[in-house]
């Protein structure tokens, strides 16, 4: 698969379909790939990589890239294509300036999981069939690929690529892998338990903003949290609850636009399961307004930007949780 993508990138540059390619650049240790723009076949040959560590969702970079003139090719995995289409729907990406190469994917891996499985000092990783072999400072270790997958890949919602100009690999289907299981567990907790869970998780937050900056749905030119006139700047919170408001506010801001790409949790340096907040919102929106997947198509209006006489009344909040509170 890696070789196929590399050759495709070189071909697209050589035949002038595009003047640059957005992909992943090789790092020091094989797992530390950086999103990068390649401008010549030589650059691609030297540094382009596609591997189980190509987890980064490249669609957000296309907001700026598609406006730089010329045409850019981007390699998008199924989950990335949902984010891409959602951004198209919001008129953030100029479609005509992007050549999308869809890439089928059976899961990307999490170096943190590999390290947690006892691999310290990982200097390189290679794929051998269904296993990953990690070379480390302290000897070689093998781990089954399925045990090293990013959490979001273990409950992958869709192998279907919803938008592409060309496809590498086979087209896939949507699937139900039980991605709401963890959310259901949280829903079954008492309000005190759930509050305790979230206060515990969010207490580790260092306000580094990695989640916001990597999120394709968070594409405001001027974020409310960067704006001194918004009153919500939150550079230093008055108390720890106010700190947590950053995540709650952000989850509301991206509600019904979040495609559940899982990047937020992947990049969090403190391993906070932020995707659970967003998934809860998605589950609620499905229940209250009918099943809706952001980015699945260009036509359906997002439930929070549309009104239907059949919509639930605000009092549903009390009916669902009011008595327990």
């Amino acid at each position, binding site marked *: 698969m890696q070789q196929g993508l590399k050759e495709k990138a070189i071909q697209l540059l050589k035949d002038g379909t595009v003047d640059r390619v957005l992909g992943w650049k090789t790092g020091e240790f094989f797992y530390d790939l950086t999103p990068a723009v390649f401008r010549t076949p030589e650059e691609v040959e030297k540094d382009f990589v596609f591997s189980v560590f190509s987890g*980064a969702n490249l669609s957000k970079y296309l907001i700026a890239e598609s406006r730089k003139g010329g045409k850019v090719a981007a390699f998008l995995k199924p989950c990335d294509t949902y984010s891409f289409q959602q951004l198209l729907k919001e008129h953030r990406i100029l479609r005509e300036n992007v050549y999308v190469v869809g890439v089928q994917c059976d899961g990307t891996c999490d170096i943190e999981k590999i390290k947690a499985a006892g691999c310290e*000092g990982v200097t390189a990783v290679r794929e051998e069939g269904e296993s990953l072999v990690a070379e480390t400072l302290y000897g070689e270790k093998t781990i089954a690929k399925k045990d090293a997958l990013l959490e979001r890949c273990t409950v992958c919602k869709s192998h279907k690529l919803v938008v592409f100009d060309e496809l590498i690999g086979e087209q896939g289907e949507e699937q139900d892998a039980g991605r709401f299981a963890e959310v259901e567990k949280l829903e079954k907790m008492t309000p005190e338990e759930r509050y305790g869970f979230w206060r515990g998780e969010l207490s580790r937050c260092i306000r580094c*903003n990695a989640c916001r900056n990597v999120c394709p749905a968070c594409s405001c030119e001027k974020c409310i949290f960067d704006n001194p006139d918004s009153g919500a700047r939150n550079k230093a919170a008055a108390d720890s609850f106010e700190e947590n408001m950053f995540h709650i506010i952000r989850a509301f801001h991206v509600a019904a636009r979040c495609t559940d790409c899982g990047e937020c949790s992947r990049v969090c340096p*403190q391993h906070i399961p932020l995707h659970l907040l967003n998934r809860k919102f998605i589950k609620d929106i499905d229940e209250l307004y009918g099943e809706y997947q952001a980015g699945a198509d260009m036509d359906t209006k997002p439930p929070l930007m549309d009104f239907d006489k059949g919509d639930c009344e605000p009092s549903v909040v009390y009916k669902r949780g009011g008595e327990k509170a």
Partner: protein
Amino acid sequence: MKQLPLSRLNDLFAAISAARKLYIPADDAAGQARFTVWQEGTALSKNLNTVRSAKDLFFPQVENLVGFKVTGKQIELIESRDPSEPFVLFGVRACDCRSFDILDKVFLAEPADTYYKSRRENGAVVTMACTRPAETCFCTVFGIDPTDPAGDVTCWQDEKNLYWRANTAKGEALTEMLPLLGDAGEEAVKTQQAETRKILGRLPLKDLDLRGFDGEHMMELFKSPKWASLSESCLGCGTCTFVCPTCQCYDIEEFNTGSEVKRFRCWDSCMYSDFTKMSAGQPRPTQLERFRQRFMHKLVYFPANNDGVYGCVGCGRCLQKCPIHMNIAKVIKTLGEDAK
């Protein structure tokens, strides 16, 4: 040299904690280490290092500076300094310990920052030598010896014992308070150091070349065309700044509670878009300029002002935590060709 069987580690922590607030690296719910106030039951983390560096204890993320009461045209000052008391910081690695020296050069330079200074005076640093460095470690490049970290007291741990060596008067005073520490020879520590050094010789980043990163090459490095590709996928999130032990840029802001205006300082990052923005203009309009600033500061401007000392200790946190895997090692390697 003193020693203590590991089985009595808890007693040691209890003894220190009886006299001082004690911070040790302990695992959080996600299995990562952070400096936590010790209480009965807190276990020492087995992780190589904490996610957030030890600078938090001397330069907290948020700190009150002063308060103001405004009545009509009059202003009254209100003392708001968070009180600092003597404390012990246990389990600091060699990299973080060196970072204190670097922060001292900024905060203790005239006029000294009194908030930082009082915490530094109140803190006793007990370091812990490393035995299983990670692939992301490169402290040796900056002349740091992870097998013999500095600090008021240096500790080593093997399967059986904790070893303890006081280095300064503060360290001696702390040792006096701990009669449970027994005497020890040097052998066990020397053996461990030799073993660790073998691993240090295999670290992939040990040969990072810093030649050419100095004041003389400032303009050449600043103008390098390579900044464009280095910075192009930087998200400007600031994670690197927040986990970095030597980053110390701060903002001074005010918060009006209604009855008082609190002036506080908080961490800031030169990677943020409004860091240098003013009404007259913005000297760093794109992420390229901001990205360049952070690394030029650490690799060129800081050493130019501080006798060649770099603003980096090779702890590797930026290598582990950057969402898009850009870091100072990649910058050093990429620009290294230009700097010669």
